[in-house]
């Protein structure tokens, strides 16, 4: 661990520097997004026929595919992000304070990407407002897709509020060192700020965090998102109460991995070894291992339930699932990563940040693969499995693959832009690392040296 003292100048560095590498990254991200926007425009012009999707049943296709798989994956990243950040604030896990804001920004980015996917996936996105909002009072009573849009909106508002409130403290204190170019933005962000509000904001943020933690299993990735699938009675690949916990575990795995990758990038770019410390990576990696273990356990439960005397439809669906090479590859990747995390827990010498980064990449790839396959699986082996053309065929088209590049570009752009506007590491975190934080009365997780 570095012995350098973290300073305000450290967290201001991203805002006040402008490097070629930054421009290169910005250009690449923008290119990815624009490329997909063009592809999407083509899709709008030609119709969804440009995708690899089709009609399940006699049609021999898959109704949903990569778009929905990536949608739930991004929502997972977002939900996991806000849960992490909330846990840091609520449970006083001060060790992770330096990455809390990155987690919140990941949530905003993930939700933006997910929201974008909703539009991309639709046959008539132009009717979103008239058809969905216009009948909201009726459809909210029974359509899981409407619940979904509702909670995503709610969490977007919640996360943005959360982020906005905590930024007021930082922006006000660091105002003199922030670029004048964005003066109007800072003015709006700190409107009516007085130092007296700090205590109040702390409380508000605590309550927001409490809301997030309580609602996560009920409404977020443990509830509404899996219900999109789990409540449908005729698709045995999806049905079942296990999907709630399963989705939640995937969300947390994806979010932790995502945050590790983003943290790694910032630490490398701005020499933040003393802020986003090795200790944080070790801790995050252990948490990743914990949720990966849960995920594999849930998978095991699902499989045993299907293959050991399952009812016909369930048995067929599960047997097909475990026999699917894509599933086997995804699970092997995830299991291998778990083994590494376990081993480096026993022998700390096996840990290094690069390996943690690779582990994160593997988990993200694994969860995305699992999500896409999960969506398609439902259509491959439905209860009404009589059609000769079922299981149908589906492979994402170039445009669908490009959407992944586009949304990653979108989230990267969000970070690149935000990092020039506001500190991505909280001032509180710096104060805490220096030991001059005011709210020392809060309980903190003991820092364990690995």
């Amino acid at each position, binding site marked *: 661990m570095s012995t350098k003292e973290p300073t305000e100048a450290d967290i201001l560095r991203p805002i006040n520097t402008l490097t070629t590498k930054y421009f290169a990254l910005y250009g690449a991200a923008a290119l990815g997004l624009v490329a997909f926007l063009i592809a999407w425009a083509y899709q709008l012009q030609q119709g969804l026929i440009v995708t690899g999707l089709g009609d399940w049943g*006699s049609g021999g296709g898959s109704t949903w595919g990569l778009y929905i798989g990536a949608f739930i994956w991004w929502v997972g990243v977002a939900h996991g992000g806000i849960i992490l950040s909330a846990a840091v604030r609520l449970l006083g896990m001060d060790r992770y304070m330096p990455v809390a804001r990155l987690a919140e920004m990941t949530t905003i980015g993930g939700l933006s990407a997910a929201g974008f996917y909703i539009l991309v996936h639709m046959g008539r996105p132009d009717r979103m407002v008239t058809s969905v909002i216009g*009948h909201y009072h009726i459809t909210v009573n029974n359509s899981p*897709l409407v619940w979904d849009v509702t909670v995503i909106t709610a969490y977007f508002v919640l996360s943005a509020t959360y982020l906005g409130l905590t930024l007021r403290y930082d922006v006000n204190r660091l105002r003199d060192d922030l670029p004048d170019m964005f003066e109007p933005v800072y003015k709006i962000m700190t409107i009516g700020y007085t130092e007296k509000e700090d205590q109040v904001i702390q409380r508000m943020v605590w309550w927001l965090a409490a809301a997030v933690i309580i609602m996560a299993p009920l409404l977020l990735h443990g509830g509404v998102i899996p219900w999109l699938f789990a409540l*449908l009675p005729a698709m045995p690949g999806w049905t079942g109460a296990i999907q709630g916990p399963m989705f939640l575990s995937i969300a947390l795995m994806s979010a932790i991995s995502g945050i590790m990758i983003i943290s790694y990038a910032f630490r490398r770019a701005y020499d933040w070894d003393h802020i986003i410390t090795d200790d944080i990576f070790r801790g995050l990696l252990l948490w990743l291992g914990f949720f990966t273990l849960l995920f594999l356990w849930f998978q095991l439960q699902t499989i045993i339930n299907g293959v050991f005397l399952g009812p016909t439809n369930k048995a067929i669906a599960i047997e097909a699932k475990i026999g699917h090479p894509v599933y086997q590859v995804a699970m092997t990747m995830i299991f291998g990563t778990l083994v590494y995390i376990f081993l480096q827990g026993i022998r700390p010498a096996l840990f290094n940040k690069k390996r943690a980064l690779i582990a994160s990449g593997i988990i993200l790839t694994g969860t995305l693969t699992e999500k896409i396959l999960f969506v398609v699986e439902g259509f491959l082996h439905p209860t*009404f499995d009589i059609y000769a053309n079922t299981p149908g065929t589906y492979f994402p088209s170039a445009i669908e693959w490009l959407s992944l590049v586009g949304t990653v570009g979108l989230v990267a752009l969000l970070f690149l832009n935000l990092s020039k506007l506001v500190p991505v590491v909280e001032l509180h975190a710096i104060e805490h690392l220096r030991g001059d934080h005011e709210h020392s009365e809060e309980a903190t997780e003991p820092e364990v040296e690995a």
Partner: protein
Amino acid sequence: MSTDDESFHPLGDEWEDELETMLDDTEYDSDLGMEMAQDAMRVTKGELSEAEFHERHHEAVMEEFGEDERPTKEAYEAAQEEASGTVSNMLGAFDGDGDETRRETMKKMGVGAAAVGLGAFGTASDGPEESLAAGDGPRQETTEESPTDTQWGMTIDLERCDGCLTCMTACTQENSLDDGVNWMYVMAWEDENNDSPEGGNGLSESGAYTDFNMGSEFNMLVRPCQHCTDAPCEKVCPTTARHTRDKDGLVLTDYDVCIGCRYCQVACPYGVNYFQWDEPSTDYSDLDESHTMGDYEYGERWVDSRAPRGVMSKCTMCPSRQDGTQGEEKVGTSACEDACPPGAIQFGNVNDEKSDPYQHREHPTKSRAVVHLTNSIESSKSAPSPDDIDSALSEGDDVETAIEKIDGLSDNSSFTEDQLAIMKAIDILSEGLEPGDEENNSILRNEQNILASVEAIQQYVDLESDEALEALQLGDGSEQEAKFRLHQYTGKPSSFQLLEDIGTNPNVTYLGQEPGPEAQQVDGPTSPEDVGLVDERQEVLDNETVGGVDGVSL
């Protein structure tokens, strides 16, 4: 839904009271608000024109608000200018297209009604009659749908289906469907207990048309949309585009509202939905307008014929026929039913005991015999008409001579003891129910024809005599014996509904063998390609996929 609830608003009394309270809290006149809202609903139903609506409350609104900027102002002014024309002319005058106007009006009135505190929702909810006064009483419990309500549906005789796929082509034609969009889908199948012969050789070679036949050696499944009473597709729809019509229980898609999320297709256990992935091959201008609109309590919605790009479609059970826009004679029929050569598909109001699906479901053996003897394609087995009988028979003929004489009437058709026996058995078992005149009750009508023929024969031959009954193998002529005779001839089918345990309450009932959970589709007697249909739509869709990888699939 109940008609006891006398609120004018589709969401009922309670909602109305709530809104009235909200109006009371404002400084404006609540009575005026409620009156206007009520009239606004009438406009959406087409009972009142926009201009009339505007005029009716114009003075009161001016008095209360000092201005009248309701969305109907335009219509009112147009009406003032063209005071000489009829109402429809006036509406046409500012919109150009009279038919579009009513839908437009509906939208505007939605805004208009909302402006006074009540949303006039274009939903398919019940729209009971006016009186506001009744709103004072306690809220009446809505009662369950009474069995006399219209519910279109089908009874499909799978043993009668010979897999000719005529219904599929008829549906495709009627609705201008794209290749592979098989709203009606017919398949042969087999499972552990039920084999199907090698298919694809055409009807003659595959062993179809064995006497009564019941189609062929194949196990068939005919799969239109089930028009479920508890439709999962409707439940999950985020827009109400997928909806059940109150008046007749059809589950339809409003093509103007659907956002193309495809959740209905995901939730449907039967796989009956087909998305319009690209521009349909038949242009909108080539569609018959009477075939695109459905009649609704609150105006017209586009629910029939092929879907436009980006929205979901499925079997509609021909709502424009049921609404009478294709002529009264087509009410109570569907394109597939009309086309089905052996009469395997019986469409109608499944709640009406006189309807074809009801008769076929409740009296399968007798109805089968009736269909068999009166079906046009099986003219070789048809029951003779009373006139023919009169011309052929003479007083004192015995059963054998009578059969011979009738048989001699035509070279094309034969008449056997079996046929006469079946006719007499139908006569014994008939409840004498008359066909209704509001829809197409072909089974009862044909039964009446058979009864008339039996009556005609009995004028010459005593079919009730012991010898006659013996010759016809009808035992003592009891109902029991008659039933037994029919069973021998037409079989005694079991009935089922598809995936009953999922709780969708489908409105299609099948007669015949239910496919087991591991049943698999096999080649049928006629291949879709032979009749110009595409079976696997993905083959068509894959042609337009951008950068798809051939032969690779998840």
